[in-house]
């Protein structure tokens, strides 16, 4: 499984595209929103948590179709399906690799973009923490969406349509945690719920994703 993880990471880094593209997209969102809504610091501070979370979510969405598409095209997905490790494990590793190349960098640069969005100082540690806890859920759910659409020629748009509603709970709790933190309120509840979603999704969804991949490979 570690070998598979390293292989996926190496492919993602050397083939280019996904890794930097998601970050650039995230940056663009954080630049475009102030241009769109105007530069008043108070307005920006109020919408910053939500915008940063939505930006991270969309940036995550961009690279989802790469999770299985390339492996499906060159046939290595079939090999992985017959490999000694169960397909559920393969799917979980793929989700982890996707998180490391998109979710983790997004989390790390988010304070910088918080600066652009005039996020209140209390919000920074919470933004980091909520993205660190929430983005794994985005990757796991996204892997499920990618597994559903792996056999399709033009699955990109369909993938977004399938995955975005599934992102709702994560987005609500994640943005709510930062918003409450920035307003100086108690953040334990949204954080616990966010952690619960990530843990539950990571434990259960790989089974659904693996089932979907199996159906698509049949």
């Amino acid at each position, binding site marked *: 499984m570690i070998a598979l993880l390293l292989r996926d990471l190496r492919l993602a880094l050397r083939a280019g595209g996904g890794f930097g593209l998601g970050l650039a997209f995230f940056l663009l969102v954080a630049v475009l929103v102030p241009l769109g809504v105007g530069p008043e610091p108070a307005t920006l501070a109020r919408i910053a948590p939500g915008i940063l979370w939505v930006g991270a979510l969309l940036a995550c969405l961009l690279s989802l179709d790469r999770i299985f598409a390339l492996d499906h095209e060159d046939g290595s997905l079939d090999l992985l399906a017959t490999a000694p490790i169960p397909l559920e494990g393969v799917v979980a590793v793929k989700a982890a690799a996707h998180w490391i190349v998109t979710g983790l960098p997004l989390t790390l640069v988010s304070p910088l973009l918080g600066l652009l969005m005039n996020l209140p100082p209390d919000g920074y540690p919470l933004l980091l923490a909520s993205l660190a806890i929430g983005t794994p859920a985005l990757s796991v759910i996204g892997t499920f969406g990618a597994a559903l659409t792996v056999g399709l020629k033009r699955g990109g748009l*369909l993938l977004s*349509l399938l995955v975005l509603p599934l992102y709702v709970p994560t987005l609500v709790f994640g943005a709510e945690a930062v918003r409450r933190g920035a307003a100086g309120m108690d953040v334990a509840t949204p954080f616990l719920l966010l952690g619960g979603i990530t843990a539950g999704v990571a434990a259960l969804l790989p089974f659904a994703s693996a089932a*979907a991949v199996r159906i698509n490979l049949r």
Partner: protein
Amino acid sequence: MSIWEYANPKKFMETSSIALPWAAAGALLCLLVGLVWGFFFTPDDYKQGSTVKIIYLHVPSALMAINAWLMMLVASLIWLVRRHHVSALAAKAAGPVGLTFTLVALVTGAVWGQPMWGTWWAWDPRLTSFLILALFYLGYIALWQAIENPDTAADLTSVLCIVGSVFAVLSRYAVNFWNQGLHQGASLSLDKEENVADVFYFPLLVCIGGFVLLFLTLVLLRTRTEIRVRRVQALLARERMA
């Protein structure tokens, strides 16, 4: 005699052709009685005036929007466990019907909200979760459309339906998190002391019955169509082979 007999398409077609006119007539009768009773023979609410009558469309369609998804969930599970094609086709048939009910509930809600709340739309938990439900229906229908192999499509949409159900419930509670919002609580529960007054209650029940029968009629009709489409495809395939 077991319910699985109806998994046989021929048996299903025979039985549904008998049941269909009855369901359709029942739906028509209930809706006619319920709506006429509701619209013309109930008093106006002392606060809401005659806008209260939107309830006869709004509540039943909202109820059926959720029940249609539940029915799809059960049908999907049956397909995954027992591989009865009629079940998968019934789930497929229910998708657009459920979406329509969801949209009807949203539109009638907006029409009602405008005079009552002064706004067409508010990001209230109930409203938001219904919008999300509409998105789930859209995704489900789009997945059916996108996949060519019918068995693969049935399998994948079933998996999506099960996962989607969990997330639909999660979303419902997630948006609840904001606050109670503008929408009132349930006023039709069986176990609550304060429900909607009897004058409104009975025509509403008739309307709900009408919507249930309407749903049944539409799903039967659409399932029959799907089965016929399958038969035509099978015939065409056989012709090509010959």
